[in-house]
């Protein structure tokens, strides 16, 4: 890797055309690409070609927009969190309410898009990996709606900590397969989904849940998620007549973050913060923060920052939040880090739990543990800013799925 990445290039190039990324083979600078096994290459090429076509296809885009409006319930509100703002005593805090989407998180934006593609391509079977279970639920939901078979791979550890979502998937008619290999979390679920896809590539559509995987997934998932940022931009304009000063979003694979950030990338006055799972603390080694403390490598089909040891083995991650417990990150974020456009930080388990309770008690909104990381950093950031400034925190999902985890931490039996 040393020969490919010049670490001294930290400065953002004079003018970057963010919309031109990735290149036709899925590269964001040195990151991204198609590091997949030969059996999948044809399927990936086909998916890329179909996706390139629908990107400019009015019918497809109209169907997508209609589904987002009538099935998902978009636009999601941009909400001024007045009491939280007062309590923090700094910048005005706005919440982009992805928690109010159908199924309770941003994940459905992407599964609607990929579900439509699957239908167009005549696939009968959908597979997905899931960590927190939100992407699994969102995939099972579109499968139910389109009458497709659905198999969701989920790490054994995550099945325990996200039990309510497991049951939801089953109610929706999906088969949930417990993955017992490796660390028994999201990365292992992704490995297992890839193995399924290699075996059933003819009739199966693999809906990846974040901006990771081989090209075209990082670009395609991003494009489906940018509805978040496009809406937020318009809403901020309508409510305040200005751009926000800062954006904050949590980073698992990075789909809710890129969805919010991307439409603002060329607006240089807008600062952006991606918040990784800091676990017990980035300096303890027990975390899920590859952008803060990892190094570049290749995993799950793309080159990106990873948590890895000196031999190139992937290290087990730790985060209280199943959706952030992933040793990699979408390749576009790796590129945005290197060029300095987005700042990547971490919030610890404790900070996220504190933010979870604060938002619940002050605003009456129970956030997902993933989103609580963004709230934690957003509160810290707002406190350093002036009351004239505005920040948008992406509230990527609601916290109902996490109440078992929270109760357990508090020593309460439900």
């Amino acid at each position, binding site marked *: 890797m040393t020969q490919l990445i010049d670490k001294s290039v930290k400065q953002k190039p004079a003018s970057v055309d963010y919309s031109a990324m990735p290149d036709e083979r899925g590269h964001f600078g040195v990151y991204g690409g198609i*590091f997949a096994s030969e*059996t999948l290459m044809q399927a990936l090429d086909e998916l890329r070609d179909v996706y390139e076509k629908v990107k400019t296809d009015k019918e497809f885009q109209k169907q997508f927009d209609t589904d987002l409006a009538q099935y998902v319930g978009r636009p999601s509100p941009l909400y001024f969190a007045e009491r939280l703002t007062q309590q923090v005593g700094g910048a005005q805090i706005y919440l982009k309410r992805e928690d109010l989407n159908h199924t309770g998180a941003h994940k459905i934006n992407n599964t609607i898009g990929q579900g439509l593609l699957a239908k167009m391509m005549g696939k009968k079977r959908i597979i997905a990996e899931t960590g927190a279970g939100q992407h699994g639920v969102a995939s099972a939901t579109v499968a139910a709606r389109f009458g497709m078979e659905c198999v969701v791979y989920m790490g054994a550890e995550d099945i325990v900590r996200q039990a309510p979502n497991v049951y939801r998937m089953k109610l929706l008619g999906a088969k949930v397969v417990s993955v017992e290999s490796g660390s028994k979390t999201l990365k292992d679920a992704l*490995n297992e989904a890839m*193995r399924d896809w290699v075996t059933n590539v003819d009739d199966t559509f693999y809906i990846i849940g974040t901006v990771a995987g081989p090209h075209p997934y990082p670009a395609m998932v991003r494009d489906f998620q940018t509805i978040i940022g496009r809406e937020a931009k318009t809403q901020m304009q309508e409510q305040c007549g200005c751009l926000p000063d800062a954006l904050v979003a949590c980073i698992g694979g990075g789909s809710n973050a890129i969805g919010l950030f991307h439409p603002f990338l060329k607006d240089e006055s807008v600062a952006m913060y991606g918040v990784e799972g800091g676990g017990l603390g980035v300096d303890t080694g027990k975390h899920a923060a590859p952008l803060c403390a990892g190094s570049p490598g290749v*995993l*799950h089909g793309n080159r990106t920052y990873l948590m890895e040891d000196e031999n190139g083995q992937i290290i087990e991650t730790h985060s209280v939040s199943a959706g952030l417990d992933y040793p990699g990150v979408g390749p576009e974020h790796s590129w945005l880090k290197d060029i300095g456009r987005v700042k990547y930080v971490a919030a610890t388990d404790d900070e996220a739990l504190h933010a979870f309770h604060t938002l619940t008690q002050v605003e009456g909104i129970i956030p997902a543990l993933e989103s609580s990381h963004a709230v934690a950093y957003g509160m810290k950031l707002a406190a350093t800013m002036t009351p004239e400034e505005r920040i948008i925190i992406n509230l990527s999902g609601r916290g109902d799925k996490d109440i078992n985890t929270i109760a357990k931490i508090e020593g309460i039996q439900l």
Partner: protein
Amino acid sequence: MSRLAARFAELKAQKTKNGGHKTALIPYVMTGDPSPEITLPLMHAMVAAGADIIELGAPFSDPMADGPVIQAAAERSLEHNTSLHDVFSVVTEFRKTDDKTPIVMMGYLNPIEVMGYQSFAQQASACGIDGVITVDMPPVEAGEYVPALRAKELDPIFLLAPTSTEERIKKLADVASGFVYYVSLKGVTGAATLDVSSVEEKVAQIRQYIDLPIGVGFGIGDAESAAKVAGCSDAVVVGSAIVKKMTLNDGKTEPERSIIIKEISDILSAMRGAMDDV
């Protein structure tokens, strides 16, 4: 001539019972599985049992292309912290008494990526490795990888699959050397759904465009299937069927290792016999 080219030329000159040329038998084992001490004696024993080329696995924490048997092998190997340096060491030792049997390393890209392509190629070549199969390195991404290997006279060995289009097969002809590895089925290693007639068809298609020996792997589990595949290919790769034997014991003591080595040798001898009868 490289060890791989020499070996394939040698086999081509030898006749099977019915007058065809001999097919290479390539066993796959994971370095350091189940113990660090077993790999070297096992390699020599496999040659004695009829192996023509050895495919030596380098473990990776996330072996996406492998079924349960080889996944477990990687986990056992990683319990001993087996790294690329350990693979190089065992090959160095092997070469002290066997300078002929080609060795092909098979693994995933990230350990090589972290070491750096040039440093990897330099060390792999110096210890006596002849070719490298990197499952998740397709030709389109191999712009720096292939020249780095070539510069050290290592053969970059690429995979083809039932889903490979004519166009992809043609493109491979420009970058591949050593041999071409045809993955005989849609699936992961160790799957048991080998369809010999479709393998024959695809191998014939590949031969139209690529003038390299063709090895077939994935799903070959016994002497019978090895013999069938030998009939239409230049090499037969057998992995999971022998890696399964690594669970007989943990290979810590010499008697334990002998049990595993004997079982694997028996499987290979049977395959060798059946392949030479074709």
